[in-house]
């Protein structure tokens, strides 16, 4: 008995000692889910021989963590869901080489060299193809606060993409109109969800008829089940509800291997990665020459519908948080 105890204590010591191994791996903080990122990181590892390990969390959580960690951060690369979080952490980022931005399409370019947009996404409306007729769809996101949509709308106030959309609304249409819209949603009995996936699922499950989500979530359901009873659409051309924005990446100043870190960011802009974002994830590629995803249908051409909002305008995340906090949504 006692000798087995001694043995296990020895094993324990060994385990603890072995724990901080692989310190030279490239550490990636990914605000994008494991389901999206793990495959692309695997390809990167195979192509370059650079080992990575990823910490997954929400974009905001990781941004907060990076801020908390400061110069002590073990992270090399930050991959974020939205431009707002990237803008907010710009001071922690190393400038990226200028050459990286050359192939990028204009619509996806931010105003800053501390991060780069790696894929595009748009805000869309998903709706139940069983319960909502195509001719009854709202023309503007502002229509959703009208009585005919009472109790039928889903939104995700804690989700960074929704917050980016509110930021855009505040910048473009003014603080008051944005506040009135969010308050209108609440007063109109709109249901809140934790994230995009649960909203798409909720539409299928019959909890709500429509929901405000990002363009690529439905793709995952459709790729798995073509009969999935949910569709998505843009609002009328130029409506703020069709916001076009990016997810992106940056290299941290705290990184101890900036050259490998930059290689990962470069890789994410390579045709291989871009094709993956398009075909498997359902996002919009940020470089030319990538085959479009055929499940997108009405939301395949975001440039035609997007409102005119500069990406750097999305940096004012604090104002949006304040607004949502005041409305008790955070």
């Amino acid at each position, binding site marked *: 008995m006692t000798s087995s105890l001694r043995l296990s204590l020895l094993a324990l010591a060994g385990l603890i000692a072995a724990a*901080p191994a692989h310190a030279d791996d490239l550490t990636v903080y990914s605000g994008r889910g494991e389901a999206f990122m793990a495959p692309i990181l695997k390809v990167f590892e195979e192509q370059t021989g650079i080992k990575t390990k990823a910490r997954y969390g929400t974009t905001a959580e990781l941004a907060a963590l990076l801020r908390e960690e400061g110069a002590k951060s073990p992270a090399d690369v930050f991959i974020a869901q939205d431009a707002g979080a990237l803008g907010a952490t710009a001071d922690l980022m190393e400038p990226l080489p200028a050459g990286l931005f050359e192939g990028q399409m204009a619509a996806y370019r931010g105003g800053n060299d501390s991060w780069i947009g790696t894929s595009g996404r748009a805000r869309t409306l998903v709706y139940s193809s069983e319960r909502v007729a195509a001719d009854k769809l709202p023309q503007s996101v502002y229509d959703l606060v009208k009585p005919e949509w009472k109790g039928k709308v889903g939104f995700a106030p804690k989700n960074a993409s929704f917050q980016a959309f509110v930021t855009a609304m505040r910048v473009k249409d003014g603080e008051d109109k944005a506040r009135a819209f969010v308050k209108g949603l609440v007063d109109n009995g709109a249901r809140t969800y934790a994230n995009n996936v649960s909203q798409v699922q909720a539409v299928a*499950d019959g909890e709500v008829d429509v929901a405000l989500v990002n363009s690529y979530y439905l793709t995952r359901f459709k790729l798995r089940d073509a009969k999935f009873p949910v569709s998505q659409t843009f609002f009328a051309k130029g409506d703020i509800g069709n916001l076009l924005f990016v997810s992106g990446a940056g290299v941290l100043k705290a990184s101890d291997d900036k050259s490998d870190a930059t290689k990962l960011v470069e890789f994410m802009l390579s045709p291989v990665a871009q094709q993956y974002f398009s075909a498997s994830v359902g996002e919009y590629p940020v470089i030319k020459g990538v085959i479009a995803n055929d499940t997108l249908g009405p939301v395949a051409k975001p440039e035609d519908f997007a409102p005119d909002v500069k990406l750097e305008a999305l940096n004012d995340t604090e104002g949006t948080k304040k607004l949502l906090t005041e409305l008790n949504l*955070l």
Partner: protein
Amino acid sequence: MLVPLVYLVVRAAETQATELAFLVFRPATAQLLANTLSLVVCVLALSTAIALPLAVLVTRCRLPFPWLWPVLFTLPLAVPGYVMAYALIGLSGYYGPLNQVFGMRLPRLEGLSGATLALSLYVYPYLFLNLRTVLTTLDPALEESARSLGHSAVSTFLRVVLPQLKAAFLSGWLVIALYTLGDYGAIALMRYDVFSSAIYSQYAGAFEVYYAAWLALMLIALAGLFLAAEARAARRLHLARTGTGTARVLPRAPLGRMALPAALFIALVVSASLGLPVSVILFWLSRAPEAIDWPAVAATALQTVTIAGPVALLAMAAALPVALVTTRFPGRAAFLAERMVYLGYAVPALPFALAMVFFSLAVIPFFYQSMTLLIATLTLHFLALALGPVRSRLLQLGPRTEEAARSLGHGAFAAFRRVTLPQLMRALVAGGLLVFMVVAKELPITLLLSPTGTQTLAMTVFARSSEGALVDAAPYAGLMILFSSLFVGLVLTRSGRAAGKTS
């Protein structure tokens, strides 16, 4: 132990007065408090409604296969909370078995009712075990006296048995209340806003770290309040047995016309608490579109073991000296050490983890996000679970046999090692197994403190199911239940045999 909590206070104190009013003391916080309290009350009520009848049935009624029921009523402990929630959610909706098989699309369970149901279905065993212990050790003469004084079986139960169960209720309720305060996964999946889920979403969604710190402090205060209330209520009980009594077991009554309702009740509880999670997971497994990535599942399981294993061993190694000191050399310092251990357990996991994040970044950045810190934190949090069995076994053993060994010429250490330690081994291992099991299904601490790249079963199940990828989560959830029930079985047989040996 206390130092990380101090850091929580430091962070909270950084808040500016205006922000305090704007962010902390606002109606939403009151709503969180109200939600948290109503959840605790509802979970206590429902788990009592489940546990009390079951405990009476297994201790007072003649059932077929009497050895089976206590095991079945304890096994839900093995179901991680978020798996239970996930099973309840998975039952409804477009992809739920009811819709796929019968075309019935039920509204999903959520909010207070959903969270209450999910939590109660796997925490009720804590109360069941407590009540069962008291009901089996209760002096049968008490019930017989009441009967011979003219009280019916029902009146005897209400007026004599129930009052004797107060202590068991109190300690069971305390464990359940603390558990409910600390649970994050099940409640988050049920989309109910309570302190713990708000702390997490503040941490995950907004940058307001100090609000998270405030909420964490409030949650700890709430836990402290529960502890104090329980201690106060327990002090007022007069349940000491007066006679020496006999180890007689009350004869079990035949169920008679209660047989059908009892059978239905048992069937309902077992199918909801065990059948449901298992069958929903099997259903999802059968729907998996592509081949399951078994190497990945195995790697995740291995990772889980490499965390839970060291924690269990460390907890065992630490429980031994603490138990020894508190039982053999009771004094102020020993008392404090013991209180610390229980405090570590009572502080809900999420604030505890958050405190550790703040603390490690500010004071020991080298250990931040290291396996060492994760294991140390988990050990501090769960040490009480390993301490319990060792302590009560030590009290039971007493110093007599060791003194005999001393008088036979053994040194203090040799006497302990050769006489007491072997008798303690079972309790020690039982405690270790329990710690292993809860660490394996632990979520918040692992989520916040694990080294980058770590994937445990619990993290995977939670991540996949909150992304809606229920099919992908199924193999992990299945493995998790299998894993944990194996351990519940081990713990039950271990402690059962230990108890059998002493009586």
